[in-house]
C-alpha cells in the first residue's frame, strides 16, 4: 500500500457507497448472535440500532425512512425478539427523528447524543414490553444495565461510523 494515496476523487461503486452503512448495521445486529455467551440476563446493548442511530446522527440524510423495516426484521431474526418487534420500533424511531429534524434545525454533539439516548430508551423499553406481552422475559429493572451500556457506548459507535464514513466516501 502506498504511503500517500489519493484521498480526493477516489472511484466508489454504488455498492460501496450504500452497502457500507447497511452492512455495518447488519453486522451490529449479528454481533449478539455471534458472541458465544449464554447470558443469564439481557446485558448486551442493541448494537444494530446503535449503528443505525450513529449513521443517522452523523449523516441525517443517509437513511430512507423505510429502511427501519428491512433492517429491523433482520435484527429480529438475529436478536431473538418476536419477529416484527424491531421492524416496528426502528421505523417509528426514524419517523420520530424525521419530525424532530424538521422542528429543531441546529444540531451539535450533545443534541445527537440526547436524541440517540431518547431513541435507545424507547427501543429498549418497547422491546421489553413486547417480550413481556408474549409471556417471556423478566422484571423491567433487568433492562437497566443494557440501557446504561447502550447510551454510554453511543459516542464510540459514532466514532466507528465516522471512520467507516471516511473509508466509504469518494
Amino acid at each position, binding site marked *: 500500500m502506498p504511503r500517500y494515496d489519493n484521498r480526493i476523487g477516489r472511484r466508489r461503486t454504488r455498492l460501496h457507497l450504500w452497502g457500507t452503512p447497511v452492512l455495518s448495521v447488519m453486522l451490529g445486529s449479528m454481533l449478539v448472535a455471534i458472541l458465544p455467551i449464554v447470558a443469564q*440476563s439481557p446485558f448486551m446493548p442493541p448494537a444494530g440500532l446503535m449503528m443505525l442511530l450513529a449513521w443517522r446522527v452523523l449523516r441525517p440524510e443517509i437513511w430512507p425512512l423505510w429502511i427501519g423495516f428491512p433492517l429491523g426484521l433482520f435484527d429480529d431474526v438475529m436478536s431473538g425478539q418476536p419477529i416484527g418487534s424491531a*421492524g416496528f420500533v426502528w421505523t417509528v424511531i426514524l419517523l420520530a427523528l424525521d419530525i424532530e429534524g424538521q422542528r429543531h434545525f441546529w444540531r451539535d454533539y450533545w443534541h445527537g447524543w440526547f436524541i440517540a439516548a431518547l431513541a435507545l430508551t424507547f427501543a429498549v423499553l418497547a422491546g421489553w414490553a413486547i417480550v413481556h406481552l408474549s409471556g417471556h422475559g423478566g422484571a423491567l429493572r433487568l433492562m437497566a444495565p443494557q440501557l446504561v451500556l447502550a447510551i454510554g457506548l453511543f459516542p464510540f459507535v459514532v466514532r466507528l461510523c465516522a471512520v467507516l464514513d471516511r473509508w466509504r466516501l469518494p
Partner: protein
Amino acid sequence: MAPPSSRRPGYDRKAQYGLFATYVIAIVGAIVSLLLLVVSIADPAGFNALRAAGNEITRPVAAGLRALVMGVGNIDEQIAAYINAGSQNAALRRQVDANRTKLIEADAIRQENIRLKSLLRLTETDAGTVAAGHLINSTASSAARVARLDIGSGNGVQSGMPVRAPEGLVGRVLRTGPNTADVLLLVDEGNVVPVRRTTDNIPGISSGRGDGTVEIRALNTERNPFKPGDIVVTSGIGGIYRPNIPVAIVARLQGDRAIAIPLANPGRVELIVVQRPFRPEEAAPRADAPAGEAPPANASAP
C-alpha cells in the same frame, strides 16, 4: 451545524412525490411490522424458517468462537491445578479411599432398588436421550432468555423436548432448525416446571425470574414450606420433564415465595442432552394421582 436540505424538495414535483412515497412506504412498513408482531406473539413457533435461517448463518462462527472461549476460560483452572498438584494429590487420595466405601454401599443399594422395583412391577424407562450438543450462544440483548443449541431437527430434536445437563435441568426446546435449536431457559418467566422437594416430596412450581434465578411456590399449602438449602427436582407431573432431574437449590425467602438458583448454570455447562418428552401414563399408569394437584400438560407452554 445545519442539516442538509434533502427533505425540502421545493418546487420539484418529482422530488415531492418521491418524498411522499418514502413516508407512505415507512408507515406501511410499520403497520406490516405490527401485524407480523401480532402473528409472532400469537404463534411463537411461527416464522420458524426465517429464524432457523438466521441461526444457521451464525452457527459456525458462534460454535467456533465458543470452543476458543471455553479453551481460554479454563486456562486459569489448569495453571492452578499444576501449582496445587502436591497437596491436591494427598487430599484426593484420602477422598478416593472414603469414596470407595460409599461406592460399594451405593452399589448394594442400587441392587436392592432394582430388586424392589421388579417386585413392585415398576419398569424403569430409558433416559429418553435424543441427542447431545452444546449451548453456543443466547439472546443476550433481548429480554427473553433463550439460548441456542448446535444440534437441530437433523439430530432428531423437536420443539417441546426437555434439555438437561449432567448438573440439572436447562430448559426446553422452543424452535428447531436443521442444525440449530432455540432453548427456552429455566430462568425465563415463561418456563414453568412442576417440581418437588427431594427430602419429603412436597410439590411445587418453579417459574423463572429472568435474572438467573427461579422462584419456587408450593402447590397446595397455605404458607411456604421451602427453606434455604432445599433442593428441588422435577416431579414429572404433567409430562414434558422426566421426574428426578435436579432443578434448583433454594437460596432465600421473599414473602411466600422461595428464590432458588438453578443447579445447571447455562453459561458454564459443557454438554447438554436433549430428551424425549416424558409422558406419565406410558411410564407407569397411576390411577391415584390427585387431579387437583396436577397442572395441565401444557402448563409450561408460553
